[in-house]
């Protein structure tokens, strides 16, 4: 078990190193001078000013050398010079061009909003999706089943941002059912936190639940025809218990796999949701960084944080297998 974990963590680390190299290379090998956005941020950018900045930032050195300095910053404090000199404490992901704040400090500020959005939204779609899917499986072939499947296809054929925009315009602005859609830290009270995020949660939850409903339905229809489910019926187990105990229990492993990866994806930034509902999280931060003038250190940080959660989620899902499926439990 420990050996398995060590191996998985080592390969996860390797993946993250490769991702960081790729992102780093993209910016430096791409067209244009990476110092340009920074130069644009300080009044008129003259060629002399640009050249000076390029020299100060060490952009004339080889990419490998620069990556070395950047990577070293993850474990050692370093100084960053773009005109004025900034101290950047380890783990240093750079200094934001636009705010002149340490990227890690900003990350810490923005992450709770994204985490809150992701937890609420993911739980909503998991619960709603699995319940609807089980119901569809129970009544498969009937009008209830067909209705649910059709509804789910309809919802998932509308782009997410259209649903989110419509929800915001009607439910928040026009009808004022959720007048306040904004992020309040949970430290200010669970009530305002939950109420402020309720509409984004519902939007994320209901639109994504269709995927889970169809996936759960498919899994359940499959397990319902398994011999061991028939055995349960032959023992005299109630129909609903056959469904929600024996059949659902056997369907849960692939559902958890899907959920783990989806949840990690949400943690990497719920871009549309944060943008439309104006929530200051990782997604919004990333979008602002991409728009000209680009904020390279922030972009690198958001890509890395996204990759980090996906990699961790994969390990967690693998560990969950051994909890959920006794056949892969390592003794």
């Amino acid at each position, binding site marked *: 078990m420990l050996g398995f974990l060590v191996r998985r963590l080592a390969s996860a680390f390797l993946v993250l190193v490769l991702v960081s190299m790729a992102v780093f290379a993209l910016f430096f090998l791409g067209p244009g001078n990476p110092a340009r956005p920074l130069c644009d941020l300080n009044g008129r950018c003259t060629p002399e000013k640009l050249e000076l900045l390029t020299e100060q930032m060490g952009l004339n050195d080889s990419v490998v050398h620069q990556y070395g300095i950047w990577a070293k910053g993850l474990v050692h404090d370093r100084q960053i010079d773009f005109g004025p000199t900034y101290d950047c404490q380890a783990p240093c992901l750079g200094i934001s061009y636009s705010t002149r704040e340490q990227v890690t400090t900003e990350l810490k500020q923005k992450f709770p909003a994204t985490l809150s959005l992701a937890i609420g939204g993911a739980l909503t779609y998991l619960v709603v999706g699995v319940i609807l899917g089980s119901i569809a499986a129970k009544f498969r072939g009937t009008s209830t089943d067909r209705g649910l499947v059709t509804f789910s296809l309809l919802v998932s054929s509308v782009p997410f941002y259209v649903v989110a925009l419509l929800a915001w315009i009607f439910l928040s602005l026009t009808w004022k059912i959720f007048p306040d859609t904004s992020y309040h830290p949970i430290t200010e009270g669970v009530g305002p936190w939950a109420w402020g995020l309720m509409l984004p949660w519902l939007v994320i939850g209901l639109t994504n639940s269709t995927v889970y409903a169809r996936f759960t339905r498919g899994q359940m229809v499959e397990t319902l025809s398994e011999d061991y489910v028939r055995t349960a*019926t*032959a*023992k005299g*187990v109630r129909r609903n218990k056959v469904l929600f105990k024996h059949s659902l229990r*056997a369907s849960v492993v692939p559902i958890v796999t899907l959920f783990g990866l989806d949840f990690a994806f949400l943690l990497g930034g719920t871009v549309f949701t944060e943008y439309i509902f104006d929530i200051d999280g990782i997604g919004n931060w990333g979008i602002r960084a991409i728009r000209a003038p680009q904020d390279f250190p922030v972009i690198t940080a958001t890509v890395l944080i996204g990759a980090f959660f996906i990699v961790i989620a994969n390990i967690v899902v693998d560990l969950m297998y051994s909890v*959920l*499926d006794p*056949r892969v439990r390592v003794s």
Partner: protein
Amino acid sequence: MTTQDQGFLTQGGLSESPSDVDAAYLVVDHLSVRFPTYNGLVQAVTDLSYTVRRGQTLGIVGESGSGKSVSSMAVLGLHNPKSTRLEGSIKVGGKEVVGADDSQMRKMRGNDVAMIFQDALTALHPFYSVGHQISEAYRIHHSVSKSVAKKRAIEMLDRVGIPQARSRVDDYPHQFSGGMRQRAMIAMALVNDPTLLIADEPTTALDVTVQAQILDLLQDLQREFNSAIIIITHDLGVIAEMADDVLVMYAGRAVETGPTKLILTHPEMPYTWGLLSSVPDVTADTEARLIPIPGNPPSLLTPPTGCPFHPRCVHKDKVPGDLCVTTLPELAAAQVGVQHRRRCHLPDPESVYQTEVLPEIAPDLIDPATGEPIAALQEIDMAVLEAVAADNRPGVVSERQLRESGDDQVRPDQPATFSKENEDRHP
């Protein structure tokens, strides 16, 4: 002889005592199971009638797709009512099963009637411990605490011969060997002391030593609780070991039925002959080839006309005209033995078996000089016939059921017990 003839007639044709049917714990009456599909109606079981009494073991034999499992799953109501058409009647302990609602069925399932499924690896839930699955079966029908049910599960595992039951009870099915899984399956089926146990190929996946242990176990448990057992198998060895009576099924119908001893020694239906010829003989020459039944089982979407076995039957030329192709034979009284019935147009199947089939499948039992069975076999045969004749148990198919089918005519030219003619052949 005369008294025996009268005995049969009294019991069968003249005054059927009502207790004959009442004593039967399971009465399957003109059961048809059909599945509508896109390609048409699959006629899995057609007009099947049989009875099983407490303490009796009925063996149901036949090829895959002959309707053995389908008919017994109907007893537990395990077919999805939406995709299954059930006709006829199944009475368990006097209660009607066909059309019963789910709550009535639930009380019966696992409690009065339990089933041992064929492949214990797929029939046990992979995510629940063996003990959990056994105690769940117990708690459904007994309101006891979890710890009491677990004690019961350990007791059952112990009884079916799982070593260290106390520590193995929390194991998952994949941690058990094949034989142990089958035992656990049996423990689960027996946890509520069922009156009727349906064992669907309980030993097919097991090696022979384990197979013998499992069969012994079933017999012990039957003695203890006087249960009725239906054993579904295509293994005639298992039938010979276990069953009091046999029901041979082909294409969803009963084609031959009777006491096991008779079916194995005086089969009168070419399909049963085929089953017997397909059994390997360990004493035979290694060069000897098995004789398979030619052809494939018939399509149940479009069953053959007349006798369902006629496309594969090598003896149909002995039947005058095209009777085999046009007319379904009745489940009529056989030439040899009381309570022995078969569906066949052959005018004298007994002599075809003795002169053509037996020399082919068991040449060492035939005296090469005379062409007659060897003396030892004749002795055994007489003993079998006497034992069967002295046995006055009711048949697998009750007389009432036969009357309703119109299958009851005792042909005047073919007395329904072993006759003078047969005696001539077995002096």
